């Protein structure tokens, strides 16, 4: 039985495949490609086993599980490249994927800038696979959901949310001897507590399900929902805001692609003509660091280059960008290991942003505020102006008026139109950076922030 067939048989019957089995399928593809004379081949194998329990109206209403495997093959011949992906792992399907990739590659003009595949690389090990997360059962999730729903019922509220767990593993290799593998787990608990006409929300995401306390999150959302029921309508305008980490994340998350060298080369980054200048306040420093203990993600990029820790912003000054091999060559820099799988037109991006943060607690931020707004979460954020980085969106699930150092009352939700560049010049206080999770951006390590002159343009009806 070939390695690919063994892998095919393993998937779905015995749970996740081993790294050896993943390597087996990479080797099979490379062997098949060699046998039909393909000059250069790259293979990615990605396996995900995930489950998600969804609840609303104090009951589970959706409950799903999936097991997927994808094999993605890129061939490169005569300065041409293309990719074909299949979820079948038998040799005939793998051969068909190779041939499809070749056929696509042959159909295009030569690209004189295309680089040969990279050779063998060395990677720093990261351990983000937690067995108890992978082993979480539907019954485990249901029991936690039931406890949260019971709390809602006890408090006269209605709960909705998710409890999910997943294990993912990937391996990649190429015909020049490069091989890389990675696996991780992650769990998410998110809850919205509704107490008419208000709602509030709490969410956590971690590699280790033991780092998530669903009942504590349910209690926090329940308490805030109750406090949000009697919302006052305030006039739009500029306010001091205290953004909880999820709100900070969902805004600053829109900056990530601006740090891509390709985005600057294409003149669509907000840092175009601003590198080396005092763009943000001196209290803002940002790195991209996949090795940070609160981060998840593979220590290699889409071409198999090792991810580097990159200082992006130093005391308010954008200093460095991230580079794929192609954009690094254009800029005469070294690749930083942030490239996407080729071929693509976007190049690269930092996926593991870490803000430096501060020492203030949210309570201290509130105590220091004469008049302002405490923001739980932001929603439906979209870019209005790509160069000034003006974003619009709404507050959601808990907006509170702070007066004379205390949370005074709830406020009706606002629409904001706010430049992120200006916002990060107006940060007055920061909390410790935490692994934040929202709904608009992928998880990053960011602090709560107190920001002056945040611009709310309109108010909604609740």
């Amino acid at each position, binding site marked *: 039985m070939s390695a690919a067939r063994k892998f095919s048989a393993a998937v779905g019957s015995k749970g996740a495949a081993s790294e050896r089995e993943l390597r087996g399928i990479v080797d099979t593809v490379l062997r098949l490609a060699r046998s039909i004379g393909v000059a250069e081949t790259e293979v990615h194998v990605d396996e995900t086993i995930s489950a998600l329990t969804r609840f609303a109206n104090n009951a589970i209403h959706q409950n799903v599980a999936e097991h997927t495997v994808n094999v993605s093959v890129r061939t490169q011949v005569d300065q041409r490249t293309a990719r074909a992906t299949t979820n079948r792992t038998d040799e005939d399907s793998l051969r068909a994927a190779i041939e499809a990739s070749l056929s696509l590659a042959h159909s295009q003009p030569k690209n004189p800038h295309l680089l040969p595949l990279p050779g063998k690389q060395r990677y720093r090990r990261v351990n983000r696979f937690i067995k108890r997360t992978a082993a979480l059962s539907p019954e485990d999730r249901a029991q936690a959901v039931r406890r949260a729903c019971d709390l809602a019922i006890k408090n006269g509220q209605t709960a909705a949310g998710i409890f*999910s767990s997943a294990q993912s593993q990937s391996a990649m290799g190429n015909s020049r001897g490069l091989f890389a593998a990675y696996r991780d787990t992650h769990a998410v608990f998110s809850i919205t507590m509704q107490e008419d006409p208000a709602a509030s*929300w709490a969410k956590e995401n971690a590699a280790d399900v033991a780092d998530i306390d669903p009942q504590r999150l349910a209690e926090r959302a329940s308490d805030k929902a109750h406090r949000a029921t009697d919302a006052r309508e305030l006039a739009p305008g500029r306010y001091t805001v205290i953004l909880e980490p999820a709100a900070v994340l969902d805004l600053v998350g829109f900056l990530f692609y601006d740090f891509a060298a390709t985005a600057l080369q294409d003149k669509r980054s907000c840092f175009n003509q601003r590198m080396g200048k005092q763009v943000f306040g001196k209290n803002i420093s940002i790195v991209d660091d996949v090795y940070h203990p609160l981060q998840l993600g593979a220590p290699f990029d889409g071409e198999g280059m090792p991810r580097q820790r990159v200082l992006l912003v130093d005391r308010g000054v954008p200093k460095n960008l991230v580079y794929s091999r192609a954009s690094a060559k254009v800029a005469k820099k070294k690749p930083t290991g942030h490239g996407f799988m080729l071929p693509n037109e976007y190049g690269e991006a930092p996926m593991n942003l870490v803000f430096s943060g501060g020492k203030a607690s949210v309570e201290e931020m509130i105590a220091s505020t004469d008049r302002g707004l405490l923001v739980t979460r932001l929603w439906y954020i979209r870019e209005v*102006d790509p160069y000034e980085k003006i974003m619009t969106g709404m507050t959601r699930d808990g907006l509170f008026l702070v007066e004379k150092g205390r949370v005074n009352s709830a406020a009706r939700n606002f629409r904001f139109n706010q430049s992120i560049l200006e916002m990060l010049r107006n940060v007055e206080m920061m909390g410790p950076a935490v692994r934040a999770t929202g709904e608009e951006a992928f998880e990053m390590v960011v602090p709560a922030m107190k920001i002056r002159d945040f611009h709310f343009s309109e108010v909604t*009806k609740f």
Partner: protein
Amino acid sequence: MYDLATAALDTAKIRGATYADVRVMHLRQRDLTTKNGQVGTLAQSESIGIGIRVLANGAWGFASTDRLTREGVAACAAQAVSIAKASALAKRGDVVMAPEDAYVDSWQSPFRKDPFEIPLETQLALLLAADAEMRRVKGVTLTETDMQFRKIDSWFASSIGSRIHQRKVITGCGVVATSFQGDEIQKRSYPNSFGGQHALQGYELAESLDLLKHAPVIAEEAVALHAAAQCPQKTGTLILGGSQLGLQIHESVGHPIELDRVLGQEANFAGTSFLTLDQLNKLRYASDIVNVVADARIEHGQGLGTFAYDDEGVPAQCTDIIKAGQFRGYLSNRETAHLIGLQRSSGTMRTESWNRLPIIRMTNVSLLPGTWAFDDLLADTDDGILMETNRSWSIDDRRYQFQFSTEIGWEIKGGKRGRMLKNPSYSGITTEFWNSCDAICGREHWTLWGTPNCGKGQPMQTMGTGHGASPSRFRNIRLGTAFSEQ
């Protein structure tokens, strides 16, 4: 494929399911892009697998696998039942489904040219030629083009006896020119943002767009926008082009009428809706001239929301949503139909792929054409702003307050199109906005636009929806709000 589906249904029944349905799906996709005269993405993918949804102990379970053997499918069905039984640990009542007939049928969406049979060289040559046309315009700093093709086969089987095969062919195509100058990035897209136009059509869609004619026009507009006047901040008359109005319909009519949102099932993520059940047949949603339908039937057009059966085995239907301004209907499924007094689902359950649960989705939610000729509408407008092609879009989680900005605008003065305006935007409250509509252009200006990127559900699913619209006029709208005080 039906053998596997039947094996899954049999296992589910043996394990204790009182109802089960199964979708075996085979998805093929091809993506082509160019950037600045070079090929960008060039990829194709295929994925095949089975998703099994069961009711057991009065609760839902769903599992999926790509292991398409009798053993693999049986194991997946058993897992779905086991998950349903776990769901029952936190249920508040048993799921009740509206009755539906069993159907045995096969349907294929109409297309003239299979995009997977057109030589890739031909497709790339068209994109590269359009890319070159845009790059000839001085001041353009970034050019992008793209084509996307999908062919989706699904075999649906349910424990009530349905066996339905559907094949859908989808094409998307568009071009974008971007210009950076001074401290400003301006962009123009054709025929729409979000990758252009998308429809349930073959390669004939890409050929019909006449990319080579329009590419230099939008490139010139992208550059010209730098010198254009800023859209003023005021309350005034707004005329929306069809594609922008399509997105306005999507956000401020399509999402609020999803019954799962109304019932709180999306409260944690996509949000809820201001259209509470007591509003049905009572709310004056819009002015008298506004008629909106949710129509999945092929008679409505070849939109991204067109099919013969939904992914719950219910035939495509046309539902009145707004009739002469009155709120008349929701999007429902077999589980929720009885809550609004319906005997039957309105047929809107759709899934992204075999590994996702079907959920309530927009089909083609369209504003029916009015009577105006576009030139007459302009001539009838003394003072207003015409806005076209979406640039940003945002609405609150109950779908009241929205703000949109578009790529380009024109001042309308004395019934004539005047100077170009940059950074146009407008905002409002959904029902106030729709009640201010006083003119809708006729059938000759009506296009069934495709929105390919509607996100909903957890795990997230991306779905294509259709929105027919023709240019329309709205009075007393807040204009220029996105740049107020900036």
